[in-house]
């Protein structure tokens, strides 16, 4: 049975797209067929990490939502861009980066049910094992929907007060939507924090599992928005942490 994984954070700047790109690539590299949908329609960005240039994009998620074609027509095979080989495949459904398209979808909205139907059609058409949904920060109808449809919801937070509060709100929503499994990922943890103590504190606060802790890493910052870190540095501790999270998704 295919698995849907949503990656959410209450606030922006948590490194959500970066996290999604690395995790999806890690799962694909382990031999699965993986799709990523950028539902961050107001501020799309994950395509940069997968080295998919706007000029290479024909149809996008926007086209599907406007009824201009099937969602799989907006899926791009980016396996080669990120060095995924063998049985594994990685596909991206990007959101349009054209200002006109963003304005149109914000102004006119769309039937959010189409998002649900599109996810299902995409999984069937591309025979995906995993579908990763990169969401817009904060709460909106589409984040509610992607949370509700998920088999696994990953909430990314930074260890600071604002994110603690925001994550509590997101957890409330997730419980209201009967989400099946929640994993927390702590990102941009300062090196002076004790990871074990941090993990324990966060798990006690939310009564959910912390799947991984990612340091405030200069290595990642350097490569930010230019490629998938764990492909370039597979043996780096950060890449190993991603494999740990991937394992929890595959086994869970």
């Amino acid at each position, binding site marked *: *049975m*295919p698995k849907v994984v949503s990656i959410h954070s209450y606030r922006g700047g948590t490194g959500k797209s970066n996290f999604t790109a690395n995790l999806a690539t890690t799962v694909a590299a382990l031999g699965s067929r993986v799709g990523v949908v950028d539902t961050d329609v107001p501020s799309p960005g994950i395509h940069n990490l997968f080295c998919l240039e706007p000029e290479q994009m024909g149809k996008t998620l926007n086209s599907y939502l406007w009824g201009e074609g099937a969602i799989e027509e907006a899926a791009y095979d980016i396996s080669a861009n990120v060095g995924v080989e063998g049985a594994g495949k990685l596909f991206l459904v990007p959101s349009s980066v054209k200002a006109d398209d963003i304005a149109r979808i914000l102004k006119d909205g769309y039937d*959010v*049910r189409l998002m*649900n*139907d599109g996810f*299902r059609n995409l*999984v*069937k058409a591309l025979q995906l094992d995993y579908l990763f949904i990169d969401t817009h920060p904060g709460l909106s*109808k589409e984040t*509610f*929907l992607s949370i*509700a*449809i998920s088999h696994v919801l990953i909430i990314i937070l930074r260890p600071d007060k604002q994110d603690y509060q925001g994550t509590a709100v997101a957890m*409330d*929503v997730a419980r*209201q*939507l*009967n989400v*099946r499994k929640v994993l927390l990922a702590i990102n941009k943890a300062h090196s002076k924090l004790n990871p074990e103590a941090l993990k324990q504190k966060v798990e006690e606060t939310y009564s959910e599992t912390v799947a991984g802790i990612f340091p405030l890493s200069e290595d990642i910052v350097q490569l930010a928005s230019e490629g998938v870190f764990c492909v370039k540095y597979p043996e780096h501790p950060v890449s190993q942490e991603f494999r740990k999270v991937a394992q929890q998704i595959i086994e869970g």
Partner: protein
Amino acid sequence: MSNVGDLQSLASSITAMTSPFRNYLIDLHEKYRSLNEGAVADYIPELALAKPEWFGVCVVTAEGQVFEVGNCDQLFTIQSISKAFVFGLALEDHGREYVNSKVSVEPTGEAFNSIVLDEATNRPYNPMVNAGAIATADLIKGKDGTERLKRVLEMFKRYTGREHDINVPVFLSEKATGNRNRAMAYLMLNFGMVSDKIDETLDLYFQQCSIMVNARDLAMLSATLANGGVNPVTKERAIDERYVQDVISVMLTCGMYDASGEWAYRVGLPAKSGVGGGITAIAPGKLGIGTFSPPLDAKGNSVRGIKVCEDLSKDFGLHLFNVASPERNLQEWIAGGDGVNDW
């Protein structure tokens, strides 16, 4: 409204969108969309305008959750489906004994438009054949035709939660070509089974058949009966609780024209169909189903609608007399969860 209430209501509308049950209905709709059998009714030109590809499926639970797929906003005329509900109104107007003295409740193997009355009592066989429906319409109270029609329309509004209009061209066509129905009415007048305001009653009958509904309305009609006569969304009572069983049992025995016996056996859901392409079906205490697809089989029932009801009944164990564990648990499929594989 408090924030908690808002969160709950948004969450419930979102979970209805992502519910495995809705996904099941999407797959079911897809499965039968390409089934191109049957023919659109064309005994009056207005009905022949219906597009054969129109196809809507709506399910409303007794708790008021609404699941819809396909053309659920497309309006069409309710036709014979009205008969079951007008029968309920006649029961409220006169009580069971009097109504039974005018219309029997015996299924007939004859076609819906046959001109046959019970030889011993002169009663039409049941309220679902045309003769019985005309005799039932005759019983609707009101000082004149306008008030009687208004009472019928208000009744439908209580069931569906919205205003209904009459399709005037359909009404006029039915009236202009309804000589067979007129003949039945006069035959019944001859036996003293109906009052002498024949034209007014026939107008009311043609009008009730020309009421415009959509698939969602049909699901609301049956969900209201499934919920004991109270609309599960608006919480308004549509019919006296004493007569819910009358309406449902006649639907079970006579609702699908002369296919009713096999329907009760195979599908086991009390239902009523109309030549406009609608079917409304009830799983008492659980849900109401509304389907709309104009192509009809030889017995006058919507081909795709039959398939949808058959599958829903089989997959969720909705047959009235089913005791075996169904393949799918309805509550789990509506709520979602780990036990459900809807991919």
